[in-house]
């Protein structure tokens, strides 16, 4: 978004008040904060509108394909590093299906792709799209394959062909699914952009030569009236992938150059190399990855990496408060408590597991703060712990009457003993001391 001063330059400076603000400068300030709309000014010139629209456009364009609940949204990123704010649209993962397969085989393959569903910390992890490849060069085969995949699943689709005619024929049959077309190169750009425009689908540009050549391709596409673009930079190595993607992101978000501000597609191929390309895309600016093939054992770590990298750094990741049984905890097992900051929880959990001693882990709601921070902020008090014991039904689950507290906050042991009526033991200061502590309990 441009600043108020930048916007002000394009306003008529009449201070007429028709926008409901006393002066043009006041209106500009509201615009800069997205609290007013440019249309409210009856006098702003067409050039002014165009200039402001261009400078307020997101540095990386948001591109959507698919429809309904399974819509894929990529791009619209504003940061170089996730700690600066956050990364907004998680890298989408797609798996490819060849049109050389029989109808039966296609059905089986789609079923396989869709059966990868995994729930982790409240999120469902599954593939975001299916890419159908025109390997046969036979228009009827490609169209039939696209129809077969579309019939077998509501997953968003990517249509892969180098022929504008075959792409048009296949995409027309499922145009309402709004597939991503992949794609146009320097040779077939004009024909491809006509197809994309006619069908209202986003188009992928392919240019492995370099960023100068890609920028030229983008300019031509925009000249042809296309805005929804995705870029395949065609890197030959991980080095090229990292460097080209990093340059595009930096040029776009630091506003050094606006001609490459589109989401990046990585055609990952298969095998170990593909997994590595996928990881790199997740960490460094890839918005969509197509795998030729990927096993469940390779996919899960990638999905979790994506989950990790795309978490909002300003929101501490929290674990649901409550009583968690560890190592087969029973009624006679002790209760240990900690806070609901996920890192704290993971560390304590791993150390209790290491001890192999059955125990209950009571996760107290500290609003996502770690033990010491929560203690200092008054979010971990004897009262709060005691309330957590009540609300989690802890005393029914564990009848041992034994409560182990983090050694760092031993100061609150007396009060806690009084409030809880349990025998309170001061545990080790560092969670790594838990295995020994629990074994000697």
């Amino acid at each position: 978004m441009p600043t108020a001063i930048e916007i002000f330059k394009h306003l008529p400076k009449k201070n007429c008040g028709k926008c409901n603000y006393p002066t043009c400068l006041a209106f500009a300030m509201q615009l800069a904060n997205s609290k007013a709309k440019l249309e409210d000014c009856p006098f702003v010139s067409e050039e002014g509108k165009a200039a402001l629209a261009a400078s307020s456009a997101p540095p990386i364009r948001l591109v959507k394909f698919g429809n309904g609940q399974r819509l894929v949204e990529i791009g619209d990123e504003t940061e170089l590093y996730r700690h600066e704010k956050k990364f907004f649209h998680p890298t989408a993962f797609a798996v490819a299906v060849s049109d050389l397969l029989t109808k039966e085989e296609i059905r089986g393959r789609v079923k396989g792709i869709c059966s990868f569903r995994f729930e982790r910390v409240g999120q469902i992890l599954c593939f975001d799209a299916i890419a159908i490849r025109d390997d046969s060069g036979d228009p009827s085969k490609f169209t039939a394959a696209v129809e077969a995949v579309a019939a077998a699943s509501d997953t968003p689709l990517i249509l892969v062909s180098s022929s504008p005619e075959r792409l048009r024929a296949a995409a027309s049959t499922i145009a309402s699914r709004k597939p991503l077309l992949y794609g146009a190169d320097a040779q077939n750009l004009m024909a491809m952009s006509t197809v994309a425009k006619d069908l209202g689908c986003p188009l992928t540009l392919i240019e492995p030569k370099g960023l100068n050549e890609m920028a030229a391709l983008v300019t031509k596409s925009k000249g042809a009236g296309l805005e929804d673009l995705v870029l395949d930079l065609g890197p030959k190595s991980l080095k090229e992938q990292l460097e080209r993607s990093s340059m595009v992101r930096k040029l776009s978000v630091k506003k050094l150059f606006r001609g490459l501000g589109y989401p990046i597609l990585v055609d990952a191929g298969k095998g170990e190399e593909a997994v590595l390309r996928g990881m790199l895309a997740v960490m460094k600016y890839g918005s969509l990855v197509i795998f030729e093939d990927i096993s469940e054992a390779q996919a899960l770590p990638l999905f979790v990496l994506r989950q990790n990298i795309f978490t909002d750094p300003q929101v501490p990741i929290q674990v649901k408060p409550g009583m968690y049984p560890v190592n087969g905890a029973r009624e006679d097992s002790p209760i240990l408590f900690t806070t609901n900051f996920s890192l704290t929880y993971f560390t304590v959990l791993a150390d209790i597991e290491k001890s192999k001693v059955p125990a209950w882990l009571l996760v107290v709601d500290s609003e996502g703060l770690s033990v010491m921070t929560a203690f200092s902020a008054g979010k971990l008090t004897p009262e709060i712990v005691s309330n957590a014991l009540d609300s989690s039904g802890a005393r029914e689950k564990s009848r041992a009457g034994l409560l182990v507290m983090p050694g760092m906050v031993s100061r609150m042991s007396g009060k806690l003993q009084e409030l809880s009526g349990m025998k309170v033991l001061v545990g080790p200061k560092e969670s790594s001391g838990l295995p020994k502590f629990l074994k000697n309990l």
Partner: protein
Amino acid sequence: MADVPVPKERWSGKIGTVVLGATPEDGGTRSRSLVLGGETGMPFLSYEGAMPNRPLIAGEVLDCPGELPELVRKEFEGATEDPVAWAKAWELRGADIICLKLHSTNPEELNCSPEEASQTVLKVLRAVGLPLIVYGSGHEEKDAKVMEAVSNIAPKERLLLGQAEESAYKSISAAAMANEHAIISFANLDVNLSKQINILLTDFGTRKDRIVLDPLFASLGMGLEYSYSVMERIRLAALMGDSMLQVPLICDTTSAWKAKEASEEIEGQDGLEERAMWWEATTAMAALISGADALIMRSPRAADVVRKARDDLRGGI
């Protein structure tokens, strides 16, 4: 044709270097010494700065394998029972360094003496030509004695000793300084604490070119994103000129094996062996991309994957 500008950042800072391992020329017995660090830009961006030394992969060796996962034992075909055989296996598998963890010295378990444990260091040094990282058992008081013994038994080898923490850094840094070894400074997931421990160490007399920083790399699914961003912030601060952070970074990715997904079967999913390998490889890749100069790894297959990726990222060097 549109001319796309190269978005080169002009950094004022530079990461310092640390030499590990001494050859006979320098009074040691290593077949070669290795250099960590020296970057003048963010990781692997050759258009922005140089990365003169490739990030190194250290193979983990435990002097008592204890709770080492069965899958890892299998990968080494039994060599994990003997630290010397284990280290040799790593050398054959292309490790750059050996990371020997003297868990046997843990006073709560085997409680081996510093002298006994340092004999293992000597044996490993005789068996392989690679530089060595040596850790104790993580027990502060005992580690102080163990590291003193290790430092003295291999005085000229330029070992990398782990680890100095804010609460316990004096005896270990004294042990390292006495025989010109390098030292790992450890801080718990925080840019300022990282800086703090390096200030303490240098104030105490440790040379900056003997310090490698470990800001704690949390594994995939267990807080990786925290570590990833702490690493990036440390590296950015260093390149912007914060001299106390201009040291190479080391990440221990063996913690990946603690993750549930890397150690337990998942209903309806096969391939635990494959998944565990990728769990560590993914953790290590995130460390590498966020600025690691050295990785401590457990699985040789994961190390193979990461080594290939590292070389590819450096343009095949």
